[in-house]
C-alpha cells in the first residue's frame, strides 16, 4: 500500500497510553510509559533525563524504527502502530529527519553525497542545488566534496543536519546531536539546527543531557527514572 502523507494535521506528535517493555532473561521491564503527550506542528522540544530513561526509545518509536507494545502513536496525522514495517520505512523516508550523536554520516560518501542520500529513499528527485544551498547555510560551502574523515565532528553534525533537512521532513529527531562536541560547537550546532527548523517549518525534538542545550528551548520534557514523561506545562503524566 502506498502511503499518502498529504493530510492536514495540527499535532505533529500525539502519544496516548504508550508503553514499551523489554524482555531480558525472562524478566520484563518497562522502558517507556507515557499516558499522554502532544507536540504541535512547528514546535521545538528538548527532552532530557538520565541515561536509560527511554529518551532514545521514544525517538525510535516516533521515527517508526520501533513498535510499542501498547498505545497510540500518531505522527503527522499518521497512526504509526497501524503501519507495517515497509510503510513505516516509507513514512520515515518522507516525514522524518534523524540526527544521531555519532556515526551520522556514511564514511564512503562526501558531504554533498551524504546530503543527497537523505533524498534517495524518500522518492524525491535528488536536488543537488538544494543540497548545496543547505550545506552553504550550514557554513560548509568549502566542504562539499570532503569525506567525513576529512571533517571535524562539528562539521559532520552540520552535514547531518543538512541531510535531515534536505528532504523537507515534517519532524526532525535529534538524538544527542551535540554529545560529541565541545561547548563552543555545541551552541553553534544547536543554534543552526533550531534556525534551520524554524526556517523550513519543521517540528524539532532534541534529546540531550546537556544543560546549555536544554535551557535554550522554551519547551522542555524531563524523563523520570520512573519512565514516566511529563513536561512542566502541558504533558499529562
Amino acid at each position, binding site marked *: 500500500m502506498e502511503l499518502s502523507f498529504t493530510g492536514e494535521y495540527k499535532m505533529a506528535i500525539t502519544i496516548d497510553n504508550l508503553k514499551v517493555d523489554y524482555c531480558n532473561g525472562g524478566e520484563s521491564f518497562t522502558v517507556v510509559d507515557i499516558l499522554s503527550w502532544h507536540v504541535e506542528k512547528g514546535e521545538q522540544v528538548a527532552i532530557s533525563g538520565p541515561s*536509560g530513561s527511554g529518551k532514545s526509545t521514544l525517538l*525510535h518509536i516516533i521515527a517508526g524504527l520501533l513498535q510499542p507494545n501498547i498505545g497510540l502513536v500518531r505522527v503527522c496525522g499518521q497512526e504509526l502502530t497501524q503501519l507495517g514495517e515497509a510503510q513505516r*520505512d516509507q513514512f520515515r*523516508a518522507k516525514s522524518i529527519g*534523524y540526527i544521531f*550523536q555519532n556515526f*551520522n554520516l*556514511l564514511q564512503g560518501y562526501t558531504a554533498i553525497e551524504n546530503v*543527497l*542520500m537523505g533524498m534517495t529513499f524518500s522518492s524525491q528527485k535528488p536536488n543537488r542545488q538544494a543540497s548545496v544551498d543547505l550545506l552553504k547555510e550550514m557554513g560548509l560551502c568549502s566542504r562539499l566534496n570532503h569525506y567525513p574523515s576529512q571533517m571535524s565532528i562539528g562539521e559532520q553534525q552540520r552535514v547531518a543536519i543538512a541531510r535531515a533537512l534536505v528532504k523537507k521532513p515534517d519532524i526532525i529527531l535529534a538524538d544527542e546531536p551535540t554529545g560529541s562536541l565541545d561547548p563552543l560547537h555545541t551552541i553553534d550546532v544547536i543554534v543552526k539546527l533550531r534556525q534551520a527548523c524554524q526556517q523550513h517549518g519543521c517540528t524539532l525534538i532534541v534529546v540531550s543531557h546537556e544543560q546549555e542545550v536544554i535551557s535554550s528551548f522554551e519547551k522542555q520534557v524531563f524523563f523520570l527514572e520512573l519512565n514516566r514523561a511529563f513536561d512542566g506545562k502541558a504533558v499529562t503524566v
Partner: protein
Amino acid sequence: MSLWRIVFKSLRQHRLSTGLAVFSIALGVALLISVISLREQSHHNFTQEGLGIDAVLGPKGSPLQIVLNALYHLEEMPGKIKWSYYKKVIEDPIVSDGIPFISGHSFAGFRVNAIDDRFFTDFEFLPGKHFSFNRNAGGDGRSFQSRNEAVAGWAVAKMLDIKLGDTFNPVCGVNAGDPIHVNDTLTFVGIMAPTGTPHDRAIYIPLKTFYTLEGHGQDVAQMAVDEDCREISGAYLKIKRIRGGALHPGIQDLKYNISQSSAAQLVIPTEVLPRLFNIIGWVDHILLAIAVLVTLLATLFLFTALISALRERRRDIALMRSLGAQRRTVFGLIITESILITLLGGILGLCFGHGIVAIGSYFIKIETGLRFSAGYLSVADIFVIPSMLIMGFLAGLLPAIQAYRLSVLKNLTPVS
C-alpha cells in the same frame, strides 16, 4: 543519489575485494570458455570433418596408428602395402580416387612424405577445398615437378623460415639420430597456403624420389621402375557419395573385404577418431572440472568478500535504513552488487576466454596444423551470462538476507 550510484560507490569503496572477485570469476569463466571452445572445436575437427579423407588404405596394424600417421603426421605406419594391391582397390566401383603416399622420413622434426603429385591438384583437404600456392592466400611457388623438388606446408615454412630455393636433406626416419640422406639435396619450390589442417605441418616430395634416395638400397630403387615389387605406406581414398552427400554404403563391404585379406586394411577416419577422442576425453573432462572448480571457488570468494564487506557496512546499512531505506531496498543493493561483480567477471572471462583461444589457436595451428577459431561460439558462450546472473544471485543471497535482517537500532544505538 540513485541506488545505482550507491551500488557503484560501494563497489569502489571495496575495490580491492571487488577487483579480486571480478578477476577470479573472470579467470574461472575464461578457463571454462577456452576449455569448452577448444573441446568443441577439436571434437568438430576430429569427428566431423575427417580432414577430407574418406578412407585410408593402410597396412595391417592399429587403425588408430594409421589415422595418426596418415592424417596427423604423427606415429609411424605399422608396415607397407603393395602397390599392386592399392591399384586393385582403387579399381573398386565405389572408389573414385586414390592418392598413394610413403611416410617415414623427416626434416627438422617435421615429417617428409613422398606423395603423388595429384595430391596438390585433386586432393580435397576439406570438402571442396584444394591446396593452393596462391600468394594472396599465404602460399608461394608451385608443386614439385622433378625428382629433387619439394613442397613445404605453411606451418613448416613459417617455423623453419623456409623460402623458395632453400634446400634440405631428408632424414631417413622420424627419430632423433636417424641417418640423413646427405647426398640427396632437395630444393623447396613451393609453399602451400595455410589450410588449417595437419597437412600444413609436413614436407612433401615426389613419390618416386623416395625410391631413388641414396641409402635405400637396391630393392627400394627397383620399386621406382618395377610396379610389381613397389610398396607404399598407404593411400588416401576418395569414396563415391550417394544422394545427400553421405558415403556410399558399399564402403563397409569394401572395408570387410580388404580386412579379410592379409595385404592391407581400410580405415575410415570418422570411425576411428571418435575412439581417439574418447581415449583422450578424460583430459578435457579434468580440464573442465578444474575450470568449474575455479569458477565455484571464485563465487565462494565473492560470497566471503560480500560477507566481510557487509560486516564493515553494518553501520552504513543501518544508517540508510534510518533514512528510510526499506529492507527490500538494502536486500536489492547487496544482490545487485553481487550480480554486477559476477556479470563483470563473466564478461571479462568471455573476453579472456576467447583471447586464450586466439593465442592458443595460433600455437595449435603451428604445432598441429589444426585450425581453431577465437570467434567460435560454444555452448558455454550462450550459458555464461545467465549462469553468472544466477551465481551472482546465489553468492549474494545470504549476505543480502543478513542485510535484510540487520537491526537498525543495534547498529545505530546512540549513547544516551
